[in-house]
């Protein structure tokens, strides 16, 4: 069985570790998507379990997609908006934004505190890079929505018809035969 675990909140990591390791032990494949993971948790995963960190995805997105979404797009929008008396203020806001995102991306913590909706960077980039780097390339028998923080993203995938990549959705791997 091929299982994708959405564990963006990391609030139920002991359960995710147990379940993913069991999938691997039974000869299946497990991919765990996280925003941040402690070293202790990381080392408790079976080596056969693939851990995908959001920050890593963003940094490895080929070409200009991440660049466009994170920097160029906002820059173009800033140019369009920065006219008249508000020009200086808009540019200052944009520069502050760009510095902050660049710093977070460089540190690999770009999404450390943004596992829920409400952050446009999170929504725009996150789903897109997940789709292009994980979901589109693989098919899953099951997508496990493993914590509350992952629910909005799972909802978006379902709405965008990207969830059919996983034949089933569940809140625990134990809910289905595996």
């Amino acid at each position: 069985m091929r299982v994708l675990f959405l564990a963006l909140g990391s609030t139920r990591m002991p359960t995710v570790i147990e379940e993913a390791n069991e999938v691997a032990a039974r000869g299946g494949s497990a991919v765990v998507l996280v925003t941040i993971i402690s070293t202790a948790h990381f080392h408790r995963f079976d080596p056969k379990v693939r851990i995908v960190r959001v920050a890593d995805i963003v940094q490895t997105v080929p070409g200009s997609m991440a660049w466009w979404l994170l920097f160029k797009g906002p820059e173009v929008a800033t140019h369009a908006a920065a006219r008249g008396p508000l020009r200086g203020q808009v540019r200052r806001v944009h520069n502050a934004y760009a510095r902050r995102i660049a710093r977070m991306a460089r540190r690999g913590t770009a999404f450390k505190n943004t596992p829920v909706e409400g952050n446009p960077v999170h929504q725009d980039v996150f789903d897109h890079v997940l789709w292009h780097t994980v979901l589109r390339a693989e098919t899953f028998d099951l997508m496990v929505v493993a914590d509350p923080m992952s629910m909005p993203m799972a909802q978006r995938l379902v709405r965008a018809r990207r969830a059919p990549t996983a034949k089933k959705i569940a809140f625990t791997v134990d809910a289905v035969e595996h």
Partner: protein
Amino acid sequence: MAAAPGRDVAVVTPWLPTRVRPAMGAFVQSMLDATVPGCDSMDVYHCDEWPIDVGEEDRGRIDGALHELIPRARHWRPAGERVRRLHLPVPLTFQLGYDEIARRHAAVVRTALDGRPLPQSVVHAHVGLPSGWAAMVNARPDARIFVTEHASYLDKLLDQPGSRAMYDELLHRCSGLFAVGEAVRRPLVAAFPHHADRITIVPNAVSFADRRTEPVTQLHRWLYAGRLIPAKGVTTLLEAFAQCHAENGRLTLTFAGDGPLLKTLKERTAELGLTGAVTYAGMLRHDEALALMRRHDLLVHPSHFETFGMVVVEAAAAGLPVLVTRCGGPEESLAGIESDAGELVAIEDAPDALVEGYRRLRDRFPHGMDLAKARATLADRYSYDAVAQAHARAWFPATPALDAVVTA
């Protein structure tokens, strides 16, 4: 066992054993195991609380997503003959009142049912709030609702006006509320005297199927089974053990459980020089804990409060003497057989009461007690058959020859 027709039951519970918390809700699992033979079918709704720490807006988004996902992520899983289980997450932020928590449980169950009522004519919930409320809100108008109350947080719940009012409404609607002991029934009757006739005592079910092959011959191997939290008196236990170990170096102590005091206990164990005598077995599955009882000589349970104290009865069922504090449930469960089963001591922060209790027990063991009598008495009160019959009489009162069905 044969079941009579038309005995379909829905069970709503916030607790069941899980992978990482295998001991959580063991008493619910025991009740299911005990009662399902008398049913045609049993649907179990496990409303699993998932903590989150987000603001109001994000919580709203998460709730919206959850209710949209449930219809796609709803998978009934067989959990034994005639039983199937549905796992439903209930995301909860901190600082919610018990009333709001109950409403969230109810909403999740309603979504899982696509807004339709629970189809069963008998609905049983574990704890009044949140699950009793969730059962009541989602039950058919003609359904008979029962609740087993064993919440250790009952006093806090009754202190909140909103949840107290909901509890009153639940008692008004339900056909019976089973308190697992007087420690639970007493505050409920005091809070709701107008519902006193509905609040009866039906204890937790304990398996007496297995017994140890070798009887206890000396009280050397101590066992504690439970959470490692201050309310369980585990630090006092460690100090008491240190004193007794100083008198007899052959004594050992096993902590079976997990909790926030684990690190503190381990550090103190090292300070006391007891690393070789004290074992930390971690969180165990229920069957593993029962097996561990059969490899020890004495259960020590120094808790400050227990609604029932299931582990004490389980230890006695396993043929183990018990050294237990007078913390509510155990006085009641061991009533009349205290000295046969072991020793009851006062709750104290200092280890003296436990130490003295152990010395008294050691000095009169084995001739001053009757473990077989204690076991037989407890089986009459708490065995699967005894508890299953009590449930079946309440659930299916119109069915003749009820006891024959359950115990056949």
